[in-house]
């Protein structure tokens, strides 16, 4: 669960004490491009985790020839936008729509950022920790 060493230095990636790399969000597209050139072509997933004070986006991209994995995170505040990877990796398209749908994170430059799993008129983002679980939600059908 890490990144190749040379990319960590080249892109100003901070590695925390558990060995998890945090990528500055403005370097994300460049990093993804560099990864793709290094053979990391298999897009596994992108998701988000809500830590209440901040959100973390989690990326996993794999090199199928060497079975190396690029696992990294981007830390954002509520309301911040993140550059999209869907222009580089086709698979990021739906995964980013899912994150937008369930967490309300906006991806800059995404070609088609709509809700994907929930109806278009749904209010709120259910996977956030502050989303109430004990009340009915109005557009419920």
């Amino acid at each position: 669960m890490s990144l190749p060493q040379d990319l960590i230095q080249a892109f100003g990636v901070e590695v925390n004490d558990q060995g998890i790399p945090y990528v500055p969000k403005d370097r994300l597209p460049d990093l993804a491009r560099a990864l793709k050139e290094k053979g990391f072509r298999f897009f596994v997933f992108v998701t988000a985790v809500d830590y209440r004070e901040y959100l973390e986006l989690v990326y996993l991209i794999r090199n199928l020839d060497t079975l190396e994995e690029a696992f990294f995170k981007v830390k954002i505040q509520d309301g911040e936008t993140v550059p999209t990877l869907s222009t580089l990796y086709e698979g990021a398209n739906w995964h980013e729509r899912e994150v937008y749908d369930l967490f309300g994170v906006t991806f800059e430059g995404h070609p088609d950022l709509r809700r994907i799993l929930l109806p278009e008129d749904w209010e709120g983002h259910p996977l956030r920790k502050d989303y109430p679980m004990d009340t009915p939600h109005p557009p419920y059908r």
Partner: protein
Amino acid sequence: MATRTLEFTFDEMRVNMGPQHPSTHGVFRGVLVLEGEEIKDLIPHIGYLHRGVEKLAEHLSYVQDVPIMARNDYLGPVHNELVMAHAVEKLANIQVPERAQYLRVMASELHRIASHLVWTGTFLLDMGGALGGGSTMFLYLFQARESIMDLYEEWTGARFHPNLVQIGGVRFDLPAGFDRKVKEALQTVRNTVNEVREMVEGNPVFEQRTRGVGVLSPELAQSIGCSGPVLRASGVAYDVRKAFPYDAYDKMDFEIVTATAGDVRARYEVRINEIFQAAHIVEQALEGLPEGPIGAKPPVKAPVAVKAPKGEVYFRVESARGELGAYLVSDGSHKPYRLKLRSPSFSNLQAIQHLVRGHKVADVVVILGSLDPVFGDVDR
């Protein structure tokens, strides 16, 4: 009197397909952008089966989450139970006894066979009556699948959702005389599949409707994140069971089935061959089955009994549809803080947009079928 000229431009036409449609394998809606009979684009709409499993999992304990996961991919429940149990075991460092590992391998391969049989049956049904009368093949293959469901019923008490895997092992040991019944069931499966192959392969209608249809290049397949038979049919030999072995797969002798054409026919071929490989693995697991306990001691029953330390983990298994992953974040309690399911159907289904362009309307059904999406798994 002024003359009027009438001008016809063949504009694009939009046709709605689904969500209720007998051949779309569940609830998938695609808006087809047509020019004549040719498909210019397809706008997919999913989410009709969204149940919020990931949110639900945050409110249930690890022990309760394992059977809940089985409801996602209802054609391969054991794979889903397995990925959840494995993620927790890896995080909490729970060792699984060897006998349980073999039983897990056996169970997941039996479900792989059952799932591929359903797929072959429904896929041939999608082809319509041209292959010797509609549902003939479908019923043949379902009969063979029934022999596997019978095995599950005897082993676990349930045909469909066996609830077999638990954290630290499996819940049920094999009943007496089970290996003979497994061998009989596998023989039924092999015979049926061979019979179906004879009827289907070489049939001009079948060949014409599948060869060169929906070609997926290996580059695009990887970029989308397609896995399982869809990826292997494009010539990429990636299989989680070989790449990141779990349970007793490193002790099993089997091959990664691949095909190079990347079309619907190649995906059919990969799945058919995987049925035989899976049967081979089941036999090995039966033969090599070691004696010993089937679960970690003491058995886990109370919902709060399992706690995972603070941390995060990503675990993947090879389901019948491809790489099924669970990304689990724990805050040290008995519930997940966040559980992300990386479902193979969700990623595989994204390919549909790229595959149908330039084909005819009737091909949509075949191409969609060839991706083998299970909508419980797509929408979660």
